């Protein structure tokens, strides 16, 4: 019985066991990722119909689906595809730096030593729960009246705003964009839960001796932040940025559009084409972000 085992060295056996452990993921990768990926691209190049016996029929059309997608088709809300993509990308690019900086800011605050830190941390990570899509939808979208709000209309009518406009003559043009961001602060917080957690752990893992040295050398808090804290968390920023981009793309409405094309209008080909374009878009944004960040990370390592 033991003979075949003896032929294989201990190391090979170990590797085989390792492969067995990975095999569920490999099967899943082929079944739920690779095949769907190939299929999506194949569907997008075909006119897909439903056959007589309930199967699917394919008719090769080349890139006709892609042309249709951008020239003929409109979304469920009657905007063109080009517009949909521009909107998705621009909101993403705007919120990305805000979320990253804000989560770092929250982490820095939570990392300080003060009384009641446990309670503050308890509240600070609440967005991990409140940020779930369902909850956010239910909390923010209201159909009636103004009795329910997320604190968003507190500012526009507040004394601070009135003071700034009336007394200091700050023009509304300057104030307005700032106000909209401040008013949507809950949106921002709700998307920064996991990132704050990651940043906080990164901050805690910085060796205290580094801070001691910089204090001894007479560095100000400002210098310490830029020379010690930022370089130490540069690697983790890479992760946070990528995670944020992925997370933001996950929330986009493209899935519903593709689903609507395929199963409401029966245009599986066009829906697949949309999916492919979307994939390309995500890869492009991620690649640009990764390239830019890699440079920053390397610079800080030197």
């Amino acid at each position, binding site marked *: 019985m033991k003979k075949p085992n003896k032929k294989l060295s201990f190391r090979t*056996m170990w*590797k085989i066991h*390792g*492969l067995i452990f*990975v095999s*569920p*993921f490999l099967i*899943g*990768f082929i079944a*739920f*990722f690779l*095949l769907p*990926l190939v299929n*999506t691209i194949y*569907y997008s190049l075909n006119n897909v119909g439903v056959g007589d016996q*309930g199967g699917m029929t394919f008719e090769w059309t080349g890139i006709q689906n892609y042309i249709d997608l951008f020239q003929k088709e409109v979304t469920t809300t009657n905007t063109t595809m080009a517009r949909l993509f521009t909107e998705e990308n621009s909101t993403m690019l705007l919120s990305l730096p805000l979320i990253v900086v804000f989560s770092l800011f*929250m982490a820095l*605050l939570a990392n300080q030593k003060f009384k009641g830190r*446990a309670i*503050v*941390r308890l*509240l600070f990570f*609440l967005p991990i*729960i*409140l940020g*779930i*899509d*369902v909850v956010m939808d*239910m*909390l923010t979208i209201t*159909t*009636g*009246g103004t*009795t*329910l*709000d*997320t*604190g968003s209309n507190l500012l526009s009518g507040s004394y601070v705003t009135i003071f700034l406009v009336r007394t200091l003559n700050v023009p509304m043009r300057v104030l307005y964009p700032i106000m909209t961001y401040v008013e949507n602060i*809950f949106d921002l917080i709700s998307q920064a839960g*996991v990132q704050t*957690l*990651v940043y*906080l*752990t990164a901050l*805690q*893992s910085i060796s205290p001796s580094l801070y001691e040295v910089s204090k001894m050398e007479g560095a100000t808090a400002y210098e310490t932040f830029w020379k010690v804290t930022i370089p130490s968390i540069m690697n983790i920023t890479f*992760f946070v940025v990528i995670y944020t981009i*992925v997370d933001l793309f*996950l929330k*986009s409405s493209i*899935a519903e559009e*593709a*689903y609507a094309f395929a199963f409401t209008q029966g245009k599986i080909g066009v829906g697949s084409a949309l*999916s*492919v374009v*979307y*994939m390309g878009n*995500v*890869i492009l944004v*991620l690649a640009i972000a990764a390239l830019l960040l890699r440079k920053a990370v390397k610079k800080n390592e030197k």
Partner: protein
Amino acid sequence: MKNKMKYSDMDASLAIYLFKNKFKQGAVKFFSLVLILGLCFTIVYPILSLVPVIFSTVEDLGNPNVIWIPEEFSVVSFKAAIRLVMPQGFMTMVKSVLYAVGIMILQVFFSAMVGYSLARVKFWGRGLVFGMVILVFLLPRQSLLLAQYISFVHFDVLGIMNLFTKAGEVNLINNPVVLVLLAVFGFGVNQSLFIFLFSQFFKNIPKELEEASLIDGCGFYRTYFRIMLPNAVPIISTVGILSFVWNYGDTYYTNYFNPEGSYMSTLLSSTFISANKDYILNALRTWYDVPVATDLAFDAVKQAAVLIFLIPLLIVYLIGQRKLVENMENSGLVG
């Protein structure tokens, strides 16, 4: 005399310096405290502001005199919310929680295995598999929804289904098996992220542990289940909490692959769409005899439903929150 002068001079400048320093520190502390309090307030405010809405009578909702404390205490919105979102009563919530727990256990079990193997075993093509994990994490799941959906409608593994059914395929949509399959094979909610976290954790476990167990005569599986898994409790609990929260709140997989499964998350998002407003208001009027139910009442019921939905999450969060930060530190993601 001269010496004394000098000392007192120094004392004075030292005192000024110390005072300045103290003042600076105090000011910084004060400002950060204000910021922290403000942020805490913004986080809690949406939930706090729900309370008066939910507990006031339906007639009171538009009343401008009522801001925080309702004139009359009532739980009509709560009752309506429970009736709408929990068709089987308390069992609906139990079912959703059990579903989330079940998927969580599967996700943790299988992600840990893959993560361990990726981190500790140098099998052939390890870099490639690691690349696959990252790729799956990066590509948003929606982009493959169509093909996945179609493959589940015509589900067939290498013609095996020919043995069981006439058509040679089964329609798995609306069958919870889909969700189990996805979790087992590494494609549940954010599962590639979990695999990544596990592999980062196992990378940092000292090699001596493995070697010792080998010398003591443990095989691969005993080493993993007896030595490695018990040592991975921090990361298991972190992933477990995240997995539970995300699965319980998931509307993507449940909505597309099992729309009739009556999970609380999908019920919540499908019941309270604005198209349903009149239906809900009518229900409110007939069930609880409140003729003046307005749009505001719709919101009140909706918010009550959210609060009910949040209860299991809040319990899990309150228990697990403290560990979350400590555990992340040990997760190997940092440093």
